């Protein structure tokens, strides 16, 4: 299989798994992990398109590097929030966090 198709396909499959995790997982930490999967799928596609469609430029890799930095920031704040939520509600299951009624 042509690698210029195979790599974005792997990225798409990874993205679909991440979407499933975000929608279906009960544990807030697992939802955060699934968001990391989404970031990784996006990075993989940026790098693959850079390599197989615009091999003379490095912009795709630059954007992927920014995604990496933003994912790190998101993970730090998200994990701190999970710790606060656990201290206050004593659970990490998403459906128990129903303070906002609606």
């Amino acid at each position, binding site marked *: 299989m042509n690698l210029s198709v195979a790599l974005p396909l792997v990225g798409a499959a990874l993205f679909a798994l991440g979407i499933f995790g975000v929608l279906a*997982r009960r544990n807030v930490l697992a939802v955060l992990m699934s968001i990391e999967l989404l970031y990784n799928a996006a990075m993989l596609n940026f*790098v693959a398109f850079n390599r197989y469609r615009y091999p003379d430029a490095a912009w795709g890799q630059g954007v992927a590097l920014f995604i990496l930095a933003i994912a790190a920031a998101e993970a730090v704040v998200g994990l701190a929030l999970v710790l606060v939520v656990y201290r206050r509600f004593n659970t990490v299951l998403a459906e128990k966090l129903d303070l906002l009624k609606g």
Partner: protein
Amino acid sequence: MTENIVCGFLAVMTLVPAALAVTVRNIFHAALWMVVCLSGVAGFFALAGADFLFVAQLLVYAGGILILLLFVVLLSGSPKDWAARAVNERWLPSVVVAAAFVTLLAVVLKALPSTVPPAGSPEPSTAALGRLILRDFLVPFEAVSFLLLAALIGAVHFSRKEDPAP
């Protein structure tokens, strides 16, 4: 040919642990599967000639974020939560949405004009990446450094000992 074998191996190494990470009950095991999956993505970066991203992925993701995640898993999960059902009762619509999404992306990829991959092994791209970041991406680069600083301060702020509830 060799590239195709490596690509197939990396695809299995990425997608199977990812599927396990979003389905296993034990959240600690899910985090460990994530390490394998992210290493597979790093392998894809190496295959596509992104050498700096390969190292950064291993250092920042597999080495940094996942260790942080494991710490939070161990600090926050009670064993009762660990054995709880992994997915909520709307998992079937979620599967449908995910399948629809991957079908859509596959159709779009099929519609793209196919390209011949550049021959030969890719050049090291770290120098080009550095020039790009310090020239064209200079303002976003500074903005990201502010974002990381803000995230650091925010995390410290959130994880302080709270005042007793009013």
